[in-house]
Structures are given as C-alpha cells and as structure tokens.
C-alpha cells in the first residue's frame, strides 16, 4: 500500500480507534503506533488523556520516547485532540483566563509531540478561539474546531467560527471536520445493540428507514411514540437529532479551512465499504479541493458491539485503509 493518494491526501490513524484494545491492555501506546504503521497509515493522532497517563504532566523522557517511536516506525504526529474540561469545578465553569491556560498547555503539548494541529471541541466559542490565536501562532500549531454531528459546515455555530477566522486572517484557526456529518444511514450495529437492550425491532427499522429517506427528526420521534415505542425505541428515534446527512461536496468548498480530517467510521463490511458513511463520495470531494492533509481513522464501532461481541479495531482500521487505497486508485 502507498502512504497516500496521487493528489496528496495522506493516510493516518487517530489512536482513539484502538481504544478498546488499549483499555483492556491488549495494546500499549507503542503497539498502537506500530499497528498504524503496519498498514501504511503513518500519521498519528492522539488524545493525551487517553493513552498518555499523567497528561498533562509528561516528562521529557516521555517526549523523547515518543520521537523515538516516530523514527522507529516511520510515523509522524499529526494532531492532538484537546479536551478543554470547562466543568473541572462542580459549581462553575472555567473562566476565559483559565481556558487560556488549558490552550497553552495543549498547544505546547502538541508542539512537543511534533503535531501541527490540535482538535478543538465544537462547543468552544469563537470568542475563546479568538483569544487563543496568539498562543497558537506562538507555537505554530493550528487549531481546528471539530465539525462533529449534529453540527455541520453550514450550521450557524460553525459559520460564526468561520467568520471569526476569516476576520482575523490567521492561518491558525480553522476546522477539523468529522466524517460523521455525512451519515447517510444510522449504524446498524447501534440499531442491533438497541434491540439487545430491549427495543422493538419494527420501530428500530422504521427509524432507520425514515432517517435514510431524509425525514425530519421531529416527525420520526413523534411517529415512534405513536407506534407505542418504549423508552429505548424513542431514544433510538431521538438519535436522528444527533445525526446528520449532509453533502460531501461541502468539503471542497470549505477546503481552505480544513486542517485535518477525522475519518469516522462504525463498521467496515466484508465487501470493503463502510455501512454508514459514503467514502466513495468523500474522497473525490477532497481530491477536487486538492486536500493535502490526513484522513485520520476514527473507529467508533466498539461501543456498540462490546456488550456482545469481541472487538477487533485493528482489523476494522485495516479494512478502512484498504478502502482508502481502492478509492485513491479509482
């Protein structure tokens, strides 16, 4: 396999993808990096609080080790996923000044890893981002607001971010879209889990079909109730509110602001396609915009199957990258 497309799209993995194996201590941080490298996914995205115990207080020895791994496996750090725990204190939110301390901490950490981007959670406001820009410029690390469902490119909150970034004219404030904004079908593994928990198959199927056909969430929820749905059925219907199916062509239009991409997926099928997310439309849209960054795998199927089935994140990620290669060559 090659490391990327002829148009310059590169392949990477967010280690988030291997969370099940890391959680159960079946893979160490180093082994996760090695698994990504094995499939030619040389861009490594990480979450400090997930696989770097002690974060944010990491020793120089840790960073030295990290760079040793990057060299050994031929990988590079791409993105650090910042969390910004604004609810650290029980009775109040962090002040803006306290948020800046966190930004400084995360941007410095990213720079130490050698990552060029941090992912900022979509709940962070444009006002906070504007304040953080000088810090991002100081470390020369870009900040990308995660465009994560139910947000999408044209959502007013994201448009405000884009307006703020445009007004500042900085190269350090943009977006990290999560491909979950192109969910054309609700994950069937999530549907099946609801059935295991006690939801009604007929209502689950109705919701899946209605979502796929583009019906409004409010109507679907209303209908699920009318069908006599129990609490689980209604909560499945409410899932439609948290999911969006938008047009992948938007990627081309917003390209100047796209720093990095979360290649979200739930289930790679035996035929090499993803059940919910149309990568056959996403990759041409990225190529049309000459995207030069990473497609960073974000496997999120484990939470829907772990109650009943063994999880094999490594195989799921491998399949996704085989799909990328096939689509790059198409």
């Amino acid at each position, binding site marked *: 396999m090659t490391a990327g497309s002829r148009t310059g799209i590169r392949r990477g993995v967010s280690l988030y993808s291997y969370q099940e194996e890391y*959680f159960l201590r079946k893979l160490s941080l180093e082994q996760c990096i090695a698994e990504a490298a094995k499939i030619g996914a040389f861009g490594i995205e990480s979450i400090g*609080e997930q696989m770097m115990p002690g974060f944010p207080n990491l020793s120089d020895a840790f960073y030295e080790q990290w760079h040793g791994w990057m060299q050994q496996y031929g990988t590079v750090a791409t993105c650090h996923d910042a969390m910004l*725990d604004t609810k650290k204190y029980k009775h109040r939110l962090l002040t803006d000044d306290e948020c800046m301390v966190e930004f400084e901490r995360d941007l410095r950490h990213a720079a130490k890893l050698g990552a060029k981007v941090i992912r900022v959670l979509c709940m962070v406001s444009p006002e906070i981002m504007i304040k953080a820009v000088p810090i991002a410029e100081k470390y020369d690390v870009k900040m990308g607001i995660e465009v994560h469902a139910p947000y999408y490119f044209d959502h007013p909150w994201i448009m405000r971010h884009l307006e703020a970034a445009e007004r500042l004219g900085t190269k350090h404030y943009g977006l990290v879209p999560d491909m979950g904004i192109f969910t054309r079908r609700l994950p069937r593994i999530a549907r099946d889990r609801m059935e295991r928990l006690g939801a009604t198959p007929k209502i689950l199927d109705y919701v899946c079909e209605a979502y796929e056909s583009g019906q409004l969430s409010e109507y679907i929820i209303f209908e699920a109730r009318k069908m006599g749905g129990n609490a689980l059925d209604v909560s499945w219907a409410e899932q439609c509110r948290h999911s969006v199916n938008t047009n992948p062509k938007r990627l081309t239009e917003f390209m100047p602001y796209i720093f990095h991409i979360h290649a979200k997926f739930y289930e790679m099928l035996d035929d090499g396609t993803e059940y919910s997310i149309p990568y056959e439309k996403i990759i041409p849209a990225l190529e049309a915009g000459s995207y030069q960054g990473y497609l960073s795998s974000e496997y999120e199927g484990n939470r829907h199957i772990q109650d009943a089935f063994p999880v094999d994140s490594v195989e799921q990620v491998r399949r996704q990258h085989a799909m990328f290669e096939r689509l790059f060559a198409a």
Partner: protein
Amino acid sequence: MFDRYMICEETVRNVSQDGRVTGFQFGARIAYYRGLGLSMVEGLAVSVDGEAVSPDHIRFTVGNRTFSLGEMETEYEARWEFGEVATVSVLRPGGLTAGEHKLEFTEDLRIAYMPFPLKGRDAKVVRIG
C-alpha cells in the same frame, strides 16, 4: 461505553482490619474513552443485592491515594486514567457473606461537552469464596 468492563468481577473481596472484616472492595474502570481528573467524577454509586450503599460508606483509591466521595469533588490533581483499575471500597462491617451477590456500580462523569452527566452502569453477579 465500556459499561461491561466497569466492575472487575475477579477482584471482589472482603477486607479486614485488626482481624475483623470491615467491608469489601472491587476493581473499577472508567466508563469513558479517556481518563478524568477526580473532580469530574461527579458520583459513584454501589448497590448490593438491590440495596443501595450510603455514599458516606464509599471510598475510592487510585494511585495509592484514597478519597471519600466528598474529597473527590475537590481533588484537582489525582486522575483516574483510561482503563486503569481503581479500587472502590465499601465500609460495611462483616463485608459480604460467602456465596453469590448481585453487585451494581454506576458512575456519573461530568463532561464539558455534554449537557448532562455521562452515566455508566454495570451489574454483575459476584462470588465471595
């Protein structure tokens, strides 16, 4: 997420002090995809055979430090790392009687981007030898 891994059932045991059984404990993991500072672990609840344990009788040990739930609320340094097995202790003279018990454990985690606490819940039948 990770609910089924919250209680490490093979670790459940009675604890003794000065020759008397003072309670029981079990290994517990966080029901989230990353670690958290303890102040954001908004609540832990335990029930045994359907009976809720008083919050005052719960202790949480991580990294060789032990906290009451009240102390966790203002603990801004210690962390419960992702996948780390912490110890939940229940102060209960006599501990658990020999045989099977239904142990239920819930975690409420305060997450910045969620409007309500993230809840994890695990229930397992455990055996005291």
